[in-house]
């Protein structure tokens, strides 16, 4: 890490406090301020967290791929660990997308899951692809080979992110709603404000969890090194 990056790094307690404040604010806006949707009514309130979590999951997978590229480029073992943690966060947020999406589908469409919907199936493919990342990683002994395999795999997966995001926009017939178009979002006022706060809250929460997990993994690695020295 460069000196500038280290100097401007936000501390973990500050990040945790910001996450708590933002998530609380987002929940307050979702349940007490945002108006009921004219079409879907109260059930539309799932949207605020469902979409923000989905965008956060894409962001985490993208970060994992970027760190994988840095690893392959500079052969930096820290980048490998960062890529692994980012993919892990992506899978956690991905599972939340699938759970909240299924609940919303049940209210809106009367089904927990629809295999005919490209957006749903492609997100599941993206999720399973990155879930399989861990199988690959833990089937190879720790070392440079494992880091390289994992990095190449994480990089391949990044192709699925735009495919998953664009699927609904390219499909001619789809029942999954599209709220972000080239002309901008299809909503405004408090709905837009609430969504923006929820999105920032989810990104900050994901970054906090990423930093916590990364710190834990680094301490774990140091403890292992010390154990070997003192053995």
């Amino acid at each position: 890490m460069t000196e500038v990056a280290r100097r401007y790094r936000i501390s973990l307690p500050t990040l945790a406090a910001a996450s708590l404040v933002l998530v609380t604010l987002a929940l307050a806006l979702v349940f007490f301020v945002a108006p009921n949707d004219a079409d879907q009514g109260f059930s539309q309130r799932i949207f605020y967290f469902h979409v923000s979590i989905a965008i956060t999951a894409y962001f985490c997978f993208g970060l994992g791929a970027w760190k994988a590229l840095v690893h392959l480029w500079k052969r930096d073992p820290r980048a490998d660990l960062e890529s692994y943690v980012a993919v892990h966060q992506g899978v956690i947020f991905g599972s939340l997308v699938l759970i909240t999406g299924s609940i919303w589908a049940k209210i809106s469409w009367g089904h927990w899951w629809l295999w005919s919907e490209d957006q749903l199936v492609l997100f599941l493919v993206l999720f399973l692809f990155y879930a399989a990342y861990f199988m690959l990683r833990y089937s190879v002994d720790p070392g440079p080979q494992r880091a390289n395999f994992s990095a190449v795999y994480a990089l391949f997966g990044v192709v699925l992110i735009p495919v998953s995001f664009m699927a609904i926009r390219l499909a001619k017939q789809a029942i999954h709603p599209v709220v972000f178009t080239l002309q901008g979002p299809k909503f405004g006022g408090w709905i837009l404000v609430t969504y923006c706060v929820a999105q920032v809250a989810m990104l900050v929460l994901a970054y906090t969890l990423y930093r916590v997990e990364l710190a834990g993994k680094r301490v774990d690695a140091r403890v292992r090194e010390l154990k070997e020295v003192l053995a």
Partner: protein
Amino acid sequence: MTTAETYVTAAYCAVFAIVLVYVLIIALKVQRLEREVDELAGRAAAREAESEERREPAVVG
């Protein structure tokens, strides 16, 4: 509570529960690391005491 309210509550509770489980797993890991660091500190102290015993007294003056 209407059906929509029940489902929306369930969705938000699921998000909260998963994040909570994640934090719990991290807390357990930190606890394990604490134990391991204590064990390493004990080992380092024992090694230092051992090397003190082995040190031969030097003649001064």
